[in-house]
């Protein structure tokens, strides 16, 4: 255990932090491998970590700089030191999820300390971690192997180091390096940069080593980024060939980092999927308390911070960090539902700061204010955990009390059944179209399925699309899919690139395995040139 963590836990007010860590371990650790479903993106990042370890490349396919590789390099390092590597926790994605649990606990520590230092209130810090640990938004997405979780950790670490008042240059350097790691983990961390720089400036103003602190923060932040740029330069993939940045005719002969960045900057959301749609469809149904309460808290902090910038610097910074990320979410680019992740700790922090501020304003009650604080936290916990808040216990269809789906449903069992069927019935040499969530299992565990590729790569990567499948259903043996994959294929088909797979599914295949539970539908199709007459196996289950 690091000495500073040990010192923090053993000081008189260390018990709330310990409680927060235990709570985080329980809420995120329990059912970690069972809920939610393995996501396509989880499969992609684990697949790329697998490639780092097994192939020595950043991706098993052509790496086209869609994301900086910091996240899956960390994942590869984590897997590399484990005794059973990708199978340590049962399967590759579970092993990644175990890292997410570790990262979550580190983030809990950082969030607690940030909130405590910002507000001066242990109560406020505990409340912040209460939301961060229990919010369904948090538990749902933070269990998944997502770059955003790692990026959040690096940003929180950077923030923590900036406000650590030890007056040292090496701390500023470490803060810069952490921010640089955040940038090469997920590029949207750049939206936090100006506010972090502002906070650093405020914290070192007047110090004799301020110039060195500024210089090293900037320099260290640039180090991981410069490695990324250098990597692309050495591969001759920094600039597009012919300096061609035309979005309608991408350069053909090689990928380019700067072209991809340019393309992403200009990519706008198609047909909905904007911020408000995401809010309505995915985020609000999961947690109205955090989103609503966090929004109000953010407004309060901004008003406080803008009214007294010097006195309420922490409030201003916390509010601005949240606003920065909201600007990113609302700027009109493509959004995925888990993009809400970085907002979760910020909203939790803001609620904690407002609560902490309120607690500090309580009149002194002859030593009884401690009791008042404990009762307040207990009351809040009660609200959150009971059906009133719905974080732990909810009412079922019949009005009965039951645990939240996150702690009850065993959804990944369905995917494991699908995988088991594939292993039992599909020959390893078959050419299979899959979703990325089963990619690591089919490529890392014997028997290997070297010709199993996701529909994303089968429609975009020239080697897979043209050489292996020849863009024809005739070259496909099986399609292993889910209803979500079907939706993704339809959305990805604006230019007709998925037509030949959809043709295989709709006109030349038979469904040989199927499983339904609630709104989850998993299937396996054998492509054999005839229209599917009927299922040979059907294991539908009624939604529980």
């Amino acid at each position, binding site marked *: 255990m690091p000495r500073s963590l040990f010192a923090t836990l053993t000081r008189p007010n260390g018990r709330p932090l310990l409680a927060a860590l235990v709570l985080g371990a329980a809420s995120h650790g329990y059912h970690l491998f069972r809920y939610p479903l393995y996501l396509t993106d989880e499969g992609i990042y684990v697949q790329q970590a697998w490639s780092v370890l097994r192939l020595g490349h950043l991706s098993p396919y052509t790496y086209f700089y869609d994301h900086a590789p910091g996240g899956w390099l960390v994942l590869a390092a984590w897997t590399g030191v484990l005794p059973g590597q990708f199978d340590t926790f049962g399967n590759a994605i579970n092993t990644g999820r175990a890292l997410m649990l570790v990262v979550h606990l580190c983030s809990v520590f950082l969030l607690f300390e940030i909130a405590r230092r910002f507000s001066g209130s242990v109560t406020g810090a505990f409340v912040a971690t209460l939301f961060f640990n229990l919010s369904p938004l948090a538990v749902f997405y933070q269990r998944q192997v997502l770059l955003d979780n790692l990026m959040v950790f690096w940003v929180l670490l950077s923030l923590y180091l900036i406000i650590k008042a030890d007056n*040292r240059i090496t701390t500023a350097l470490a803060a810069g390096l952490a921010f640089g790691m955040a940038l090469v983990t997920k590029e949207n961390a750049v939206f936090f940069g100006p506010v972090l720089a502002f906070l650093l400036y405020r914290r070192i103003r007047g110090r004799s080593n301020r110039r*060195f602190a500024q210089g090293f923060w900037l320099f260290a932040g640039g180090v991981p980024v410069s490695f990324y740029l*250098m990597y692309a330069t050495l591969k001759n993939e920094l600039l597009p060939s012919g300096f061609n940045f035309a979005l309608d005719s991408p350069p053909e002969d090689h990928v380019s980092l700067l072209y991809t960045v340019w393309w992403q900057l200009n990519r706008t959301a198609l047909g909905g999927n904007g911020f408000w749609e995401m809010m309505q469809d995915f985020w609000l149904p999961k947690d109205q308390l955090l989103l609503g309460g966090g929004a109000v808290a953010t407004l309060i902090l901004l008003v406080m911070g803008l009214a007294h910038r010097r006195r309420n610097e922490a409030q201003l910074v916390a509010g601005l960090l949240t606003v920065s990320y909201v600007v990113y979410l609302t700027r009109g680019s493509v959004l995925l539902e888990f993009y809400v992740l970085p907002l979760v700790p910020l909203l939790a922090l803001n609620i904690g700061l407002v609560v902490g501020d309120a607690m500090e304003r309580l009149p002194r009650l002859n030593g009884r204010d401690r009791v008042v604080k404990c009762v307040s936290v207990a009351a809040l916990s009660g609200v959150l955990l009971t059906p009133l808040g719905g974080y732990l216990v909810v009412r079922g269809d019949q009005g009965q009390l039951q645990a939240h789906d996150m702690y009850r449903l065993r959804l990944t069992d369905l995917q494991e059944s699908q995988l088991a069927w594939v292993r039992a019935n599909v020959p390893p040499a078959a050419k299979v179209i899959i979703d990325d969530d089963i990619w690591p299992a089919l490529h890392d565990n014997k028997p290997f399925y070297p010709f199993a590729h996701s529909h994303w790569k089968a429609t975009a990567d020239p080697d897979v699309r043209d050489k292996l499948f020849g863009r024809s259903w005739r070259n496909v043996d099986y399609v292993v899919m889910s209803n979500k994959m079907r939706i993704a294929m339809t959305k990805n088909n604006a230019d007709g690139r998925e037509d030949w797979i959809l043709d295989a599914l709709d006109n030349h295949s038979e469904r040989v395995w199927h499983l339904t539970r609630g709104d989850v539908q998993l299937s396996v199709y054998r492509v054999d040139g005839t229209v599917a007459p009927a299922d040979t196996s059907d294991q539908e289950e009624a939604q529980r």
Partner: protein
Amino acid sequence: MSALVLALLVIVSVVLTIQSSYTLYMMIYTWDQPEAERLARAPDSFAPPTLSFTVMLPARHEEEVIQQTIDNVVRANYPTNLLQVFVICRDDDQGTIDQALAKIDELQADGMDVVDVVVFDDLPINKPHGLNHALRFATGDVVTIFDAEDDIHPDIFDIVNTVMVRENVNVVQAGVQLMNYRSRWYSTLNVLEYFFWFKSRLHYHAKYGSIPLGGNTVFFGRGLLHRLGGWDETNLTEDADMGLRISQLGERVRVIYDDRYVTREETPPSLQHFIKQRTRWCQGFMQTLAKGTWKDMPTRMQRFLAFYTLAFPNVQAALGVYVPISLVMIVVLHAPVIVALFSYLPVLLLGAHFMIHVVGLYEFTEAHGLEASPLLVLKMAIAWFPYQMVLAFAALRALHRQLRGINNWEKTSHTGQHREAWDAVAADAA
């Protein structure tokens, strides 16, 4: 074969990165450690003058600057009766002797009779021999050395008296700073080397009790010098050698670097002189390394730090050879991306070094009421690589001389540029 070369490139790159990071840390040590920064500052109040000082001014062909230096010393803010000043010359340097005697006459006319010229006529003709000769006549509690071109601060004796009396230490190294940062293409970088060395790195050495002392503005208890038998006359960096011998005894060395009280000096007047001076330092470090005093230091950290410092010129010489070879190897062998990325590590550290030089430039100029500008930073950037090559050349030259057994003293000449620079600033301020 190529795999072996590539593996070697990776190993050397990693070693260089570690070495460069360590050097970088020592350069910013004082700014990083609030406690070290507090210790580096001069005392806020002075103790009553109690210690007497013998000031040694070794001078050879210093006609242009010696009178001003004598004047600065005797007119310091310290009781004259507690000062003894020796101008140390060889008998063949009549010009400097005449100038010193003329100054002595002038001071005697003002009632100040504390300066003498100490003349030696034997060999070798070098600084440590002159110092040892004069040490026999020293009577002060504390012996100190200033170079002939030094501009000392009037309060320097008060500061050292205070530190020695209050902290009961026998050795104090006070700050020395080159000032003429715009005189030559290499001046800015040379000035900053001093700035980082005295303001930061020496404090790190002092903390771990393994310190190569500077050649001037260094103060010793006279008894300690006698106990050590004076300076090593065969060593081209007798000051660094003295520091390590003192460290070996376990004697605590106090380092003070307060921008207000530094001794001001000048960069060498020409590239030729600069190379000669640097060659002498490198060769002196090589001699001290070979002498092996460092091996007898009590702790592992002391031995490591001494070895690291003394061996640095060898590393610098090797670097001068390694950099072009590694670049050629990367191109010729079509190094894989991962190897090339490892080779990029030392380049990043080079960037970090440049960055702290830029910051150091602004710190230095602000501390001394001077001015830095983006143009000067640009000039420094242009001079950066040639400067490193000059250092590497001097190191290689030192290695060549050492291997050939050539160890004569190549003297650096002084023209008082720092005084002109400082006078200009003072005039501007006025």
